[in-house]
């Protein structure tokens, strides 16, 4: 039996039942499209989280004070005043894996330029903060260590501040803005960074020397956070351990007590968030996979009905010379052609849906070749698997009985 003839026979049979074949296909189309678009959405969000966290500086380490027990009461993190300049000095003393270091102190308040005002955060840092976060200064220049020493009233402003305080498009460089009634001279504008993974506007910030915020605004001597960078991405883990040791020593914590600070790396953040989105991807893929399975069962169901309905046709084909194997192949090929055609349409439909999702609701998506190949393979296997039993049933019919079937 020539394969081309079998294909011709199967194709004619499918074409005779256009509507039913299409409806059977629809299950597969939706299944494949769902698998492809769901995996694309899952992968897209995973990739976007990864790149955004990496964009924050993948070798960045953050130290923050943690809730400690004071007289039996757990105290709010922010009110713990455990990070001091001594820690900075200790960390700066011959570190093995650390490169840059910058403390950070933030204050919220109203910032005013003439008739314009904006509520924002003023973050006091060292000049090294920019390197740690890999932030760039677009116009002007960053402040210097000398500015930190003198608690200079200079600042760098983010893009959001720029658009809200200078809506007319004037150059802000050299201008004074007031924050909590203190005038600050703008010496630079930060490049646009957009929102971070958590939806925070990273451009809604004013950077100023850390001492300025400490002395002139908050009147404190401690730090809220310390940002550090490891010498490279690979040594981040070692750097984080080194930081912990130095900090414990600096805080005189006896062996056996808990840390009164926490050290976090970006790698941890990445793994936490990608784990979440991996679970999401798997979940979406499983749901989509179920719809593909249901599509497969649809094929089996239709093929069974089709075998029963076409019993007489099968009898006729056998009487004019079709062998059991011919009939088996005919029905199997019908099932495979339906599932593969459905698969191809599903791939097209899935990719289109994914593009539309990105275009209209701006979700990040990523179509991977593996997801397309996988769903297509699953689809082929579905066709063979669910088509085999009905086809076997058809091939085992007795031609005499089948011809007499009404």
């Amino acid at each position, binding site marked *: 039996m020539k394969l081309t003839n079998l294909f011709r026979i199967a194709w004619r049979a499918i074409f*005779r039942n256009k509507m039913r074949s299409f409806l059977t296909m629809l299950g597969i189309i939706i299944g494949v499209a769902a698998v492809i678009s769901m995996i694309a959405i899952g992968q897209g969000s995973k990739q976007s989280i990864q790149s955004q966290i990496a964009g924050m500086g993948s070798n960045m380490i953050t130290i923050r004070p943690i809730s400690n027990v004071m007289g039996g009461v757990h105290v709010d993190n922010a009110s713990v005043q455990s990070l001091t300049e001594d820690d900075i000095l200790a960390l700066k003393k011959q570190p093995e894996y650390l490169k840059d270091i910058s403390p950070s102190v933030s204050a919220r308040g109203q910032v005013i330029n003439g008739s314009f005002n904006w509520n924002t955060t003023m973050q006091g840092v060292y000049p090294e903060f920019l390197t740690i976060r890999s932030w760039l200064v677009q116009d002007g220049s960053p402040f210097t260590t000398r500015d930190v020493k003198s608690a200079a009233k200079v600042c760098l402003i983010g893009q959001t501040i720029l658009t809200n305080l200078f809506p007319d498009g004037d150059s802000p460089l050299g201008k004074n803005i007031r924050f909590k009634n203190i005038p600050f001279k703008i010496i630079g504008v930060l490049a646009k960074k957009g929102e971070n993974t958590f939806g925070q506007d990273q451009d809604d910030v004013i950077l100023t020397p850390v001492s300025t915020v400490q002395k002139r605004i908050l009147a404190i001597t401690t730090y809220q956070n310390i940002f550090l960078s490891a010498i490279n991405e690979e040594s981040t883990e070692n750097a984080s351990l080194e930081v912990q040791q130095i900090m414990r020593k600096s805080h005189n914590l006896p062996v056996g007590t808990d840390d009164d600070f926490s050290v976090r790396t970006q790698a941890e953040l990445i793994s936490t968030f990608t784990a979440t989105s991996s679970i999401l991807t798997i979940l979406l893929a499983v749901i989509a996979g179920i719809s593909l399975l249901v599509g497969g069962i649809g094929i089996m169901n239709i093929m069974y009905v089709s075998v029963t309905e076409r019993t007489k046709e099968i009898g006729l*084909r056998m009487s004019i*010379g079709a062998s059991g194997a011919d009939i088996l192949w005919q029905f199997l090929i019908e099932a495979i052609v339906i599932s593969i055609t459905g698969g191809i349409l599903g791939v097209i439909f899935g990719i289109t849906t994914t593009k539309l999702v990105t275009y209209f609701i701006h979700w990040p998506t990523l179509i991977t070749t593996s997801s397309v190949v996988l769903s297509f393979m699953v689809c082929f296997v579905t066709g063979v698997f669910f088509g085999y039993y009905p086809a076997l049933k058809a091939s085992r019919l007795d031609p005499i009985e089948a011809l007499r079937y009404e």
Partner: protein
Amino acid sequence: MNESIVDIKNLKRQFSIGGEVVHALNNVSFSIQKGEFITIMGSSGSGKTTLLNILGCLDKPSSGEYLLDGINMSDLSKTALAELRNTKLGFVFQSYNLLARTSAIENVELPLLYNNKFSTKERKEKAIQALEAVKLSDRMYHLPSQLSGGQQQRVAIARALVNDPVMILADEATGNLDSRTSYEIMMLIQDLNNEQGKTIVFVTHEPDIANFSKRTITLKDGKIIKDLINPTIQSAREVLKKLPPVIEPVTAST
């Protein structure tokens, strides 16, 4: 001329139904020569359907010998039997058994699709020839639903002819048709027999159909009770001429 197409010797076929053995065919022997036109007659239960199934290689005898064109079919596997049906036999059924929503020509070329020897072009040529032989060359692309009963049966006959079989088996082929159309079909079958020398075995229970054949085998209770050469063969063409003229029923056309 004495070329034996069918040789049946001591053929038996029994079924066991509910523990009881039924002898559908009991010690049947006969042979069919090339170019014969035989009717097999008998009331229901006489074994004529069983005989037809065996002649058509759809069923195997319980014992005895059946040689079709020199091939002993008892030794063959199911697949080999299918091949035998495909190359040696043509079937015409009472209910036409055409594939629905499939054009006449595609229905006719169906047996050739199960034979590797024919190319697409040859298939089409042979199908056209067969349709010409049944005088339906103007209805090649009509669907069965667009054809009258008689025309559908002619398509079925063309399908039976397309593979140049050694024998055409017709099972009550006029059973669903009115008498005028029946005679038209009989005329066609007689022409195929007389002009093209096709061997035809026609199973029926209508005695007047038997008058058109050259030989009649009558079965009763699984045995041949009569095997007679028909001395006065009626011509279906003549019978048709004698019928009162009627307005041809308007057949469905595009």
